[in-house]
């Protein structure tokens, strides 16, 4: 176990930011800390680094309880969202800083820095100052600087937050490659579920300071532990239905639900891909009109409107869409292949 949190809480002046959070990260893993802004994910990262002190609970790094260990002795690499490069130092000195303060020998420092500059494709930029670098270069310097003293864990705060969409994709792939090559336990904070799904081997999902779920991208997508997770990870249709004799009904839709008392209002969710469409109106039991279509590149997103006024989102590939000859206003029949009961409806 490389990082472990046990019942960790943090309050800022009485306001809870992190609430009894427990999770662990295995050695060598690349894990995402995911949640909407203000959910406490950056606070968790700072707690692990020692930049904030927990108000309760225990934090372990490689089996050692680090609660009382100052930042300097935790041996973590931390990359700030703003990179926080030393403005008055050039690239070489930035990367060398963590080695210099630990009194490495000059020759060793030079060798280690050169090695990192090679890995991060920064060779030749040693003499540049941060303001003379591009955004991507600054980020790589920040990563190289954090990794130079060979930290036991690498903590990244919104690593792709400050770059534009086009570079983000490249950076994601680069991070995965880098992690595979260096094999450093890495925990990164993000608010972008797509990014977390694509990059991480495990995802820790936080909401309002509470841990919602930990799992592989597949697990959190297919078996969300809560409605929050279900709606936060990917798109989900959510309807509110009332149970009558084991069947939940809303508009013309019916969902078999066992073990729910009559009259109970429940929330039911289903993914867009679970909606199967046909232009043969007799094929499936529900009928609808294609109200809107959205072109997403390879995929098409469709919004169906039922006679009762319910709106349902679905998606399909562009080829499928062409084959079916659909357009806005087309009449279709559909069924819902899988769904899940999310919760009892909120009163």
């Amino acid at each position, binding site marked *: 176990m490389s990082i472990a949190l046990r019942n960790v809480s943090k309050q800022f002046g009485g306001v809870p930011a992190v609430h009894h959070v427990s999770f662990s990260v295995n050695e060598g893993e690349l894990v995402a800390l995911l949640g909407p802004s203000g959910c406490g994910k950056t606070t968790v990262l700072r707690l692990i*680094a*020692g*930049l904030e002190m927990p108000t309760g609970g225990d934090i372990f790094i490689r089996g050692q309880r680090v609660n009382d260990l*100052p*930042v*300097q*002795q*935790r*041996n*973590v*690499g*931390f990359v*700030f969202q*703003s990179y*926080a*490069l*030393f*403005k*008055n*130092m050039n690239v070489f000195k930035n990367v060398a*800083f*963590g080695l210099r*303060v*630990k009194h490495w020998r000059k020759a060793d420092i030079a060798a280690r820095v050169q090695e990192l500059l090679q890995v991060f494709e920064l060779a030749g930029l040693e003499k540049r*100052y941060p*303001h*003379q670098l591009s955004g991507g270069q600054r980020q790589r310097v920040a990563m190289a*600087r*954090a990794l*130079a*003293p060979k930290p036991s864990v690498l903590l990244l705060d919104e690593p792709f937050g400050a770059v534009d969409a086009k570079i983000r994709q490249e950076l994601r792939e680069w991070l995965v490659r880098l992690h595979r090559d260096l094999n450093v336990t890495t925990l990164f904070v993000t608010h972008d579920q797509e990014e977390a799904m694509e990059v991480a081997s495990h995802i820790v999902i936080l909401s309002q300071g509470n841990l919602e779920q930990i799992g592989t991208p597949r697990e959190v997508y297919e078996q969300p532990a809560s409605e929050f997770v279900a709606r936060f990870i990917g798109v989900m249709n959510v309807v509110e239905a009332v149970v009558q004799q084991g069947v939940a009904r809303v508009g013309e839709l019916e969902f078999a639900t066992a073990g729910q008392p009559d009259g109970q209002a429940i929330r039911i969710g289903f993914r867009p891909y679970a909606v199967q469409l046909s232009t043969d109106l007799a094929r499936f039991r529900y009928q609808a009109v294609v109200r809107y279509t959205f072109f997403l590149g390879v995929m098409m997103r469709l919004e169906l409107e039922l006679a009762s006024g319910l709106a349902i989102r679905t998606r399909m590939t562009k080829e499928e869409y062409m084959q079916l000859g659909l357009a806005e206003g087309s009449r279709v029949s559909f069924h819902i292949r899988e769904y899940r009961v999310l919760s009892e409806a909120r009163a």
Partner: protein
Amino acid sequence: MARRDHSREKDPASASRRGAEESPLVRWTLTGLALAFAAVFLLLPLANVFVQALAKGWRAYWAAVMEPDSLAAIRLTITVAAITVPLNVGFGLAAAWAIAKFEFRGKSILITLIDLPFSISPVVTGLMFVLLFGLQGYFGPWLEAHHLKVIFATPGLVLATVFVTFPFAARELIPVMQAAGTEQEQAALTLGASGWQTFWHVTLPSVKWGLLYGIILCNARAMGEFGAVSVVSGHIAGLTDTMPLRVEKLYQEYNSAGAFTVASLLALLALATLAVKTLLEWRARRELGRGQPALPLA
């Protein structure tokens, strides 16, 4: 073209530039007035100091400088500044660090206290120290008993000067430190740097231009201070006269050549301060890169 004109109108800077182009008469009048004012009230008196000092030639000028009491005044002024400036720079760094990087109770009181010397007449400051350390003052008898001299001696001059120049370094450093934020320091800590290493390698370099500017301002004021120093000095020629006090004394003795000679040295200090300030601004802008705010210089 039409679109460009439209966007231009929205930009206040170019709008005012265009406005100025339309009325060169106003522009020239205003510029002329400002220049004339500066020439009459700033340049002319300054030039006059040097003209008067050199009225009897370089040899007389040199003799006036080498006059023992004037030399003593120069030495004393340098001594006082040499003690005052490091003290206030140290204090300024500590205060600015505390104010810019931490939240604590009484912060606004501390900021107000730092500004206090600005709002107190220097003469009152001098009097204050006389009342504290003079023979009739609170600590006077104790000092007398231990054969320590504060008032009418160098320690009194240093105390008065420290008080008057108290805000200069701190005032320059606070905004620069606030602008630098705390993330670079946090990064240094995660990299294993101790508090002292962080201060020395990260905090101090990030404020170095503000610090240097604070030092030259503090120094200029420490050397030029008259009011507070005048009260605590006792005007003992060759012992407790600083340069400004020496200028006054020479002038009152109708030795205007001597007065202007010493005054010209102070004026030179002012010019040097100005030159260094300009150099610092230029270097700071170059090093911090374009688009970065330069020092928050007054």
